[in-house]
């Protein structure tokens, strides 16, 4: 079962490519002309809200859908017109699509049966695959006797048993409860590392995408918006959609001050942005600052460090979230800033309450300018 060692970082071998691929349903264009290259051995996540075209891309790779334009390639070969049964890819479906009239082992070994493998070989491979997903000894059970998490593992075993070049996962964790979902995230990731197989994972859950992926493809309304590592996507969102869809963000309409480098006029006053952020920005834009990057103190108390951006405000909402307190603070005339403070920080002077006057500050290095 164990195959070639996972590709080392930096080794980038294209496996599957989409070239100018577009999909129309009648007059409706659900996927704008799109280019995407998937590298061998990577864990690629396609992230987007419903209707963003992420499942469309999965279907194109799997061969369940023919593009209206463009080309799908595998290594050097054009596979645009190839039906799913002739593509060396297997899929873990959202609802698992396990066959209820077959036992667990028969489900897992179905692709080998289709290929004409002998019964003993099928049983042997099914046993190995089930062992790998932690379901040793479950082969003779009926699918209906398994829990959701176990069915999920059977679906994965069925997808890996024939050693495909690529595994497609269509929101496989969405039916599981939160605790099991977290467990399955690290499990899927470890299986992927162990096998070295390319995983293409579709989800609408940004936390899932950040936790599991080597690269994330962010999609919105039928287009790829940004491609990058989880850290790149989180730290340098390309536009307002990415900035607010992945993690939370305060977006403030901003106008550059012509005579000052990196300074912007906003509703909460003049803000010093990260150096270089203003380069090439001459019109209105948005200034993004993550809630966890803002420090807050009761007005009158000393701030931990002298920071450039200081804003006064009044606490409007307090929400305890276990690891931190979430506050919504009114600042300026029409502006509300969302911020998060860890519980530890609040041990010194206690959590804030609604109506308190506060002073917020943030480091210019934590700001991003989003061009609109």
């Amino acid at each position, binding site marked *: 079962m164990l195959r070639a060692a996972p590709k080392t970082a930096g080794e980038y071998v294209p496996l599957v490519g989409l070239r100018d691929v577009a999909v129309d349903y009648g007059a409706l264009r659900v996927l704008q002309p799109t280019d995407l290259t998937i590298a061998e051995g990577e864990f690629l996540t396609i992230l987007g809200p419903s209707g963003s075209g992420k499942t469309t891309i999965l279907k194109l790779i*799997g061969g*369940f859908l023919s593009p209206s334009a463009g080309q799908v390639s595998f290594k050097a070969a054009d596979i645009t017109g190839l*039906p*799913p*049964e002739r593509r060396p*890819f*297997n*899929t873990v*479906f959202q*609802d698992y*699509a396990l*066959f*209820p*009239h*077959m036992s667990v082992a*028969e489900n897992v070994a*179905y*692709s080998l*049966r*289709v*290929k004409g493998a002998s019964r003993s070989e099928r049983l042997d491979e099914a046993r190995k695959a089930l062992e790998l997903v932690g379901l040793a000894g479950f082969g003779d059970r009926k699918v209906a006797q398994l829990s959701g998490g176990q069915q999920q593992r059977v679906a994965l075993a*069925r997808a890996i048993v*024939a050693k495909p070049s690529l595994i497609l996962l269509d929101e496989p964790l969405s039916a599981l409860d939160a605790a099991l979902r977290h467990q399955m995230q690290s499990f899927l990731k470890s299986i992927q590392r162990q096998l070295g197989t390319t995983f293409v994972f579709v989800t609408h859950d940004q936390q899932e995408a950040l936790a599991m992926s080597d690269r994330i493809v962010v999609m919105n309304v039928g287009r790829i918006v940004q491609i990058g590592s989880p850290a790149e996507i989180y730290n340098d969102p390309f536009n307002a959609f990415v900035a607010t869809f992945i993690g939370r963000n305060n977006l403030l309409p901003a106008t550059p001050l012509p005579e000052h480098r990196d300074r912007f006029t906003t509703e909460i006053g003049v803000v010093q942005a990260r150096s270089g952020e203003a380069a090439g920005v001459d019109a209105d834009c948005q200034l993004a600052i993550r809630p966890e990057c803002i420090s807050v103190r009761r007005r009158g108390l000393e701030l931990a460090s002298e920071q450039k951006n200081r804003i006064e405000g009044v606490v409007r909402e307090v929400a305890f979230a276990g690891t931190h307190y979430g506050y919504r603070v009114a600042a300026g005339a029409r502006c509300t800033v969302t911020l998060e403070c860890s519980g530890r920080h609040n041990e010194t002077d206690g959590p804030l309450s609604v109506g308190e006057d506060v002073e917020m500050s943030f480091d210019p290095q934590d700001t991003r300018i989003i061009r609109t």
Partner: protein
Amino acid sequence: MSARHILTYLVAILPLGLFIGYPLGALLWSSVSTSNEGAVTYTLAFLAEALSSPAYLAVLGVTLVICIATAIISVAIALPMALFVWSRPARYQPIALLVLILPMFMSYIVKIYTMRSLLGLNGFFNQLLLTTGIVDKPTTLFLFNRGSILATFVVLYIPFAALPIYLSLERVPANFVLAGRDLGASYARALKDIVLPLASPGIVAAALFAFILALGDFVTPQMVGGPSGMTFGRIVWSQFGLAFNYSLGAALGIVLLVVTVAALAGSGLASRALTARMGR
């Protein structure tokens, strides 16, 4: 048990007893009794005759062959039709299903006459053969024989076979074919390995519907079967409607009932065996 419970049971059981239990009892009673000017005598002679007469048994054999053939051909035609409806997009399925079962809502007699006009001496097939010059005078090949009974049965009972097949297909998730193909099976292979085993209860029910409906039918054989198309249903009817021998008619009716019940029991076993076998 409260009065309400008793009432509930009465509402449930009374019609059952009245409309099924009573006629069944009457049939049984008629088959073992005969009345002569008010004097009732009990005898097993009629049942014995129904079970031992070579003439009746021969007709029973022919009838079973026709009915089994009806079941097989109806399913063979209804299955692709039901699969076609099932594989349409969800929003077109209700209308496609309606077209499939529309003949169910048409008069039985009209359909039989339509078959006669297709199969008869001046019917469509004869006209076709005459026009194309294959025959020079109308042939009686099509009407008033066992073949014409079979053809009419099939036409009549296809919708009754298609409906249960479609209903069992409807319970098979649409992405199972896709999942099978994803795992390397061709469309036909995925149908055979995944869809048909899961739909097999409906397929067995379809065969059973066609078989039982054909078995009891005495009008169709009379209308399109002619003298050579004698079936068991016709014999039963003739004892009641022509010979006024209710006792023999009832005894023959019981034979028909036993065959039907046996077919029902057999189909239950077949259904389970089929699902298990096809999954291997």
